[in-house]
């Protein structure tokens, strides 16, 4: 039986995930800050 690839062993996919996660956090912070500033 062929085992699925182990995501933890793929450093590239980990750093790609990190890039998108940090981007999402940045967008979230900006959105909340703008909403709070307008409120």
């Amino acid at each position, binding site marked *: 039986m062929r085992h699925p690839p182990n995501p933890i*062993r793929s*450093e590239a996919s*980990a750093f790609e*995930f990190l890039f998108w*996660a*940090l981007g999402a956090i940045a967008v*979230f912070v900006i959105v909340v*800050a703008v909403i*709070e500033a307008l409120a």
Partner: protein
Amino acid sequence: MPLQALPFGLAPVQTIAMPIVVLLAFVPYWIRARTLAADGRPVPTWRIVCFACGLLVLEVALSAPVDTLSDQLLLAHMAEHLLIGDIAALLLVLGLTGPMMAPLLRNPIISRLRVLSHPVVAIVVWGVNFYVWHLPVLYQAALRHDALHALEHATFLAFGIAVWMALLGPLPKPSWFSNAARLVFIVAMRLIGTVLANIMIFGGTVFYPYYVPGDGQWHISPLADQVAAGGLMMVEESLLTIGLFCWLFLRVARQNDQRQELLDYATQHGIELDERRAQRAVASGRSDELWTRLRERAGAGTPAQHHPVS
């Protein structure tokens, strides 16, 4: 404010529903533990106790009294966050084993989340999340909006679990994540927390004016409340760091002993065993497999071949 005056009655959902939801999380865990025990792969009792304690800590942190206090005092809110993101997350991770998680990891969506337990991803996301929520604009927005507050707690728990999974969890680690790298990881965690705690203690400015009325109720100045919150974080993280250093020291000592036993056995029986191979087997927790192979070879009277162990 006397405790009797706390408005617990205003939060019936939180008072009744949250304990049930949190404690219900133990049911699938217990069923899986029973299944594994019947299968001859029992989960160690201490891990089951850790998982149950993690849920209990989560339950206490999300209970109405603590939540009510955390709306009035920054110190109480800090305690709540430390319970959720540090203590509960740590205990929950200690309760997990590979076989326990196997059914979850067969789910493709959950399996993709394994990337969160990569050491670099875990500590960066954990640290960024930690600081972002402590920005005055976000921290106070979370206090005003329940949904945002729930998201704050959820991210503290999720990324707390991720960072503990990276260090202590049962999932495979990258080959470069040696004991030395773990030491760096622990120090980095400590520094990330310490810098924020120092900012709160020595900042000299009230970062969260939301707490001014609550501090007035408790006859404490807002700045003293903030210093106490930073101090609490510093003390809690110091204790955790001491514990982690002890764990790492014992781990290194145990691994050295296990590696030496393997090498001694191989030498006594005339089996060729590379030191790095022994170290790799011990570090990945698969020394039992190497012992089995060595005993087989010793019994057969043939030299060991260099099969990759992990």
